[in-house]
């Protein structure tokens, strides 16, 4: 089911949670709503679900206007951040709930329900937990049961509110991969909310970046990373070094390689892996020194200090593969020459 949002606005008292948001999500996509906390992403998800009504604007699902329709009639599956499992029911009854509350005419037989629930439990790989109560499960298990419960009614859209937010790092990694695989298997249009850009990039086929109730950019992860539409997106997606031309000595930038042409804006955003460093020759007179470095696994993050700048350019971050760093054989305090390969310009 495709989703179309037209000029959605929502206020909570005087606080504008969403301001004139329009968004189109084609069928079958796995979309991330990404943004800092308080940007309105959860509100947007709840409006799509029908748990919240917009002050202005329309919600169209498969081309049909569903703005006024109650959540129970929209045919959506919603997975809550804290799972919201029915704690007085077993795992089996939780998953069967959506089938058992159907109107008598549409309600499947108990035998069919049982078969379906066990199939879903197998899908989430938790068949052995059918008789447990939610309080007896771990966080990751609850999350998967919540997902199975939402899938039981065969929703045409699956909405997930911070699905991995309350889980520890290793479980989260597994579940991300698992959700991606599940989506490839089921192909149901899915939207999930996250504040973690890494998660959004890893899981989603489309990323929608929100900030202060507005959409900043929508696109495939690669597009958003390589061509950020504005300074906010550039800063929010991955790490960047920011050079303010009004503060930074242009000579230095010219030598570093980004001022070869005319500047295309006031701020230059440079990704850490776009900064190349080499051990400086004694004579080069490069002012930059190596302050520290951190192991990130396959890559090394190098912290550089640029004494000529007080302000945005004073500390630089560069990233390079492990081997390359070993080749350079650098020590703390060494002078290095910096070469910037690429920058994004913003005003």
């Amino acid at each position: 089911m495709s989703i179309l949002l037209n000029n959605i606005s929502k206020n909570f008292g005087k606080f504008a949670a969403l301001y004139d948001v329009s968004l189109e999500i084609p069928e079958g996509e796995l979309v991330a709503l990404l943004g800092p906390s308080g940007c309105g992403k959860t509100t947007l998800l709840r409006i799509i679900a029908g748990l919240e009504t917009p002050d202005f604007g329309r919600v169209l699902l498969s081309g049909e206007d569903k703005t006024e329709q109650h959540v129970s009639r929209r045919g959506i599956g919603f997975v809550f951040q804290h799972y919201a499992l029915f704690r007085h029911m077993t795992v089996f009854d939780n998953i069967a709930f959506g089938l058992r509350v159907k109107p008598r005419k549409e309600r499947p037989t108990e035998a069919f329900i049982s078969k379906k629930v066990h199939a879903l439990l197998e899908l989430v790989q938790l068949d052995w937990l059918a008789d447990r109560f939610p309080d007896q499960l771990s966080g990751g298990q609850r999350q998967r049961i919540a997902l199975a419960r939402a899938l039981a009614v065969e929703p045409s859209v699956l909405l997930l509110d911070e699905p991995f937010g309350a889980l520890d790092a290793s479980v989260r990694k597994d579940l991300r991969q698992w959700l991606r695989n599940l989506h490839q298997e089921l192909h149901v249009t899915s939207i999930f909310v996250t504040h973690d850009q890494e998660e959004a990039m890893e899981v989603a086929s489309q990323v929608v970046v929100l900030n202060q109730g507005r959409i900043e950019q929508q696109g495939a992860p690669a597009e958003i990373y390589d061509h950020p539409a504005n300074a906010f997106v550039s800063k929010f997606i991955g790490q960047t070094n920011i050079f303010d031309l009004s503060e930074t000595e242009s000579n230095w930038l010219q030598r570093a390689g980004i001022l070869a042409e005319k500047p295309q804006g006031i701020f230059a955003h440079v990704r850490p892996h776009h900064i190349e460093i080499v051990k400086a020759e004694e004579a080069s007179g490069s002012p930059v020194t190596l302050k520290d470095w951190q192991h990130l696994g396959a890559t090394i993050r190098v912290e550089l200090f640029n004494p000529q700048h007080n302000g945005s350019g004073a500390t630089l971050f560069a990233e390079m593969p492990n081997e390359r760093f070993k080749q350079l054989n650098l020590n703390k305090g060494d002078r290095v020459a910096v070469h910037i390969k690429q920058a994004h310009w913003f005003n």
Partner: protein
Amino acid sequence: MTQSNIMPGFRPALAYTLFYLGLVVLIPLSTLVFKSLQLGWGEYLDIITNNRVVSSFRVSFGTSLIAALVAGVFGFVIAWVLVRYPFPGKRFLDALIDLPFALPTAVAGVILATIFQPSGMLGKWLMSSLGVQVAYKPLGIVVALIFIGIPFVVRTVEPVLQEFDTTMEEAASSLGATRLQVFAQVIFPNIFPALLTGVSLAFARGVGEYGSVIFIAGNLPYVSEIVPLLIITKLEQYQYAGATAIALTMLLVSFLLLLFVNLLQLWARRRSGQI
């Protein structure tokens, strides 16, 4: 017993509990037993199978049960409204709930009797419009016991409703449940154990209630005479053994009923996965 528990001080805590129970509950209650032991088994049976006594038991337990159930329904609704809806004067109303706790029960009894007697404010209206007489009938006892019982229900249900995770309701709605289904299958099962506690508290209090009842009951033997009144009457006639025999029986019946309610509660909580 080995110290396998994280909480220290099992022995002193248990000793204190038993000491307190003994001093305040068990010793006074055991005198009741000893006093009634002065009677022979035959005498005891004679006293408690006396028609007037049996009727008073029926009145006491019957009215308490009905009142507790009614208080359960209304108390639940009041707690629901207080927790779920914002409205002006909410805090004032909330404070009002506890009034029957604080009011001397005799005062409540006099007020209720005045209002509900056939010439009273509500009594007159009920008489003329519905033909129902409240005061001086078992119905009057029920009204008084509802008045006394409602705060017990409200105060036990309210915190549980407050803590209830409303995303469970949203989840049920998103799965296609109607509002009625959400209430019956998601909200109510989670509140039920607390409601049961409230109702049993109201019931227990109702069985022992004296002050608020005697003014409105009319105290007609066989019709609207409650057990506590019968006990007082016996005491005033210096029939101490008779009074304790009735009291002991009442104690046993109450204990059995409360035990039953506790088992019911255990069952409800186990069924809902709370223990």
